[in-house]
């Protein structure tokens, strides 16, 4: 029963990632795609958690933190690039 619930959750998360992927490919504007990419990162965190429960190991749990940090940094860099045209501002650029 427990294993069946885990498999069902994995399937649901995969379907939801597929929906995000549709929005990532089709999305009319650039912020749409960034939002979808951020949400795919969040969904990958959930997939990693469910997989480590299914395999009964805690070896993958470092990946959760790493994926969270990478999704956040990616979104911040994209939003700064959209707004200002550069990511790391330098005094020499002006």
């Amino acid at each position: 029963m427990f294993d069946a619930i885990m498999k069902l959750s994995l399937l649901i998360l995969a379907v939801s990632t597929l929906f995000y992927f549709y929005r990532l490919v089709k999305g009319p504007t650039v912020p749409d795609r960034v939002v979808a990419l951020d949400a795919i990162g969040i969904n990958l965190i959930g997939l990693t958690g469910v997989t480590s429960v299914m395999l009964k190991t805690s070896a993958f749990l470092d990946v959760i933190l790493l994926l969270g940090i990478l999704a956040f940094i990616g979104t911040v860099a994209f939003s700064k690039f959209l707004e200002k045209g550069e990511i790391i501002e330098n005094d020499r650029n002006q």
Partner: protein
Amino acid sequence: MTVISEWIIGTLILLGALLCLIASIGVLRLPDVYTRNHAASKGATLGVMSLLLGVFLYFLLIQGHFNSRVLLGIVFVFITSPVAGHLIMRAAFNTKIPLWENSVQNDLQKKRDSEKKFNEN
């Protein structure tokens, strides 16, 4: 005891996965960038927090060790996901991406207009 904790963990993980699915349906169906981001940042954050709480309880109650990295992951997602949503939507507003044509309230545009008028006078 193990059966009860398995039921609790299963409920939490299934609820989290369903919330992620609802958030992705919102991203698929809602009309413009701002409402889509509203669905993604709130729904997906709540779903993945519930799911990670289930994973944490699994390792605490069934495997019997306290995993602090999952707790740190929950706190990190809870802090950073709304911040990321706010930043990307501010960038979208500043690059003049239009709202849905049926939306009735735009407070930020009103504030920008009044600031511009104040600076001109």
